[in-house]
């Protein structure tokens, strides 16, 4: 089964970390991604630019509305994702627990709905 691991974290906190801390975090993510590749579970992954770069679009009454910023303001923001292919939820949860982001924020694990 495929699962999307959505990495939520406090963006403001992340942007204010020291250079050393940021480098350490990048290295941790690098190792995590490598481990997923070695295990043969990685389908895709990406980091997202901060929500300050987000635009939200809605169409109402035939009019397109573009808003500057994310869809919803919240304490934790989506910062990236991993798409993995593993046998079951237990395997997905154990990969989620290894994600460096799990120590600072929340990893939401969502099964892919095959259409």
């Amino acid at each position, binding site marked *: *089964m495929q*699962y999307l691991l959505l990495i939520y974290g406090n963006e403001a906190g992340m942007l204010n970390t020291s250079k050393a801390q940021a480098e350490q975090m990048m290295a941790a993510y690098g190792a995590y991604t490598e481990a997923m590749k070695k295990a043969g579970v990685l389908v895709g992954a990406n980091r997202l630019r901060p929500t300050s770069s987000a635009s939200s679009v809605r169409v109402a009454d035939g009019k397109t509305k573009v808003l500057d910023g994310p869809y919803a303001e919240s304490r934790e923001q989506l910062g990236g994702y991993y798409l993995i292919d593993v*046998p*079951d*939820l*237990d395997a*997905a*949860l154990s990969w989620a627990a290894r994600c460096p982001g799990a120590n600072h924020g929340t990893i939401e*694990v969502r*099964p892919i*709905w*095959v*259409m």
Partner: protein
Amino acid sequence: MPRDGDHVREAAERVARNSYGKLVAFLAARTRDLAGAEDALADAFAAALTDWTANGIPRNPEAWLIAVARRKAIDAGRRRRSSESAVPELRMISEELAEAADANMPIKDDRLSLMFACAHPAIDPSIRAPLILQTILGFDAAAIASAFLVSPATMSQRLVRAKNKIRQAGIPFRVPERTDLGERLGAVLDSIYAAFTEGWCDPGGIDSRRRNLAEEGIWLGRMVTALMPDEPEALGLLALMLYAEARRGARRNDGGEYVPLEDQNPSLWDNAMIDEAEALLLRASGMGDTGRYQLEAAVQSAHVVRRRSGRSDWAAIERIYDLLIALTGSPVVAINRAIAIAEARGAAEGLTALDELAGDQRLAEYQPYWAARAGLLAKTGQIDLADQAYEQAIGLESDAAVRGFLQQRRSELKRLSPH
């Protein structure tokens, strides 16, 4: 060979009772589709009543039901044919239909795997026990709802949601690896105990559905210990439930009034059940790894010493509660510890221990806290405060018999009063 309908119905009920969960687990293990397995099995049981009446009861009723349920599931899959359901349905046909055709093959018992799926950490804890009652024992949502005091519609909805979660999120039907087993087994045992205590909350056994739930809890406990004989906490839980069930007959007097443990007549306890509990606890203690259920069972063991000595071993009970508090940090355990201290060392010391809990908000609306407090205040001569505490306890109690007992105790305060 023609058989009469009663005979067939009995046979079907016997299979349902002993094998229902096994059949559901077997059907759903690969597809993870519990609702589909339950529907198919219901159809198979309905077909059995007709077929077995006409053709006699098959030599292997479980295999017969599986074969029919499988065909029903495949038919249902064909009818649905959405892309989501077609894949597991087709896999089931190719992989397993051949196996099931052999009526001599014993059905693999996947009930433990099913229970671990129902008590998975990704399933809301409050729905785990109802889910186990439904999928392992075949209880309908209405029966479970009445025991858990929610509306049938709500219970039904929550069960459907949990089953969808198991299927869609890909929760595995599997006994976890050794490293996770302790915690995960704990969740299974907690669910069984939740089912049992829902049943035990009706100590008079007036509500047959609830009484039934206590028996089913014990049945599930036996099943787990049979399938995992080397897990001391599973043995501890079974022992705990048996100790409690053994006292059922003594918890009400002839007038239907509540009788607290210390006033119960030990000759009304079920000795065979207690002896079985003692043996289980002894076996568990030889395995090391003492947990919550073994400790709670040990408390019960120290109470049934009364059968011989006429008095519970309160000093031992206090020591066991110390261990339980260290393990659970539960304020409920702390109340019981204070009561044990009062019995072992005097009411004043018990009250001091209870005072330490006074700030805990979780206890403000907890009846046993106020009842314990009232009892100890009365024993130390603080009649007015005892009266207030009893009033609080009475106002928080939902069981009429227990409420009546507390009101009786409160009225007895007047005799103690200096006024």
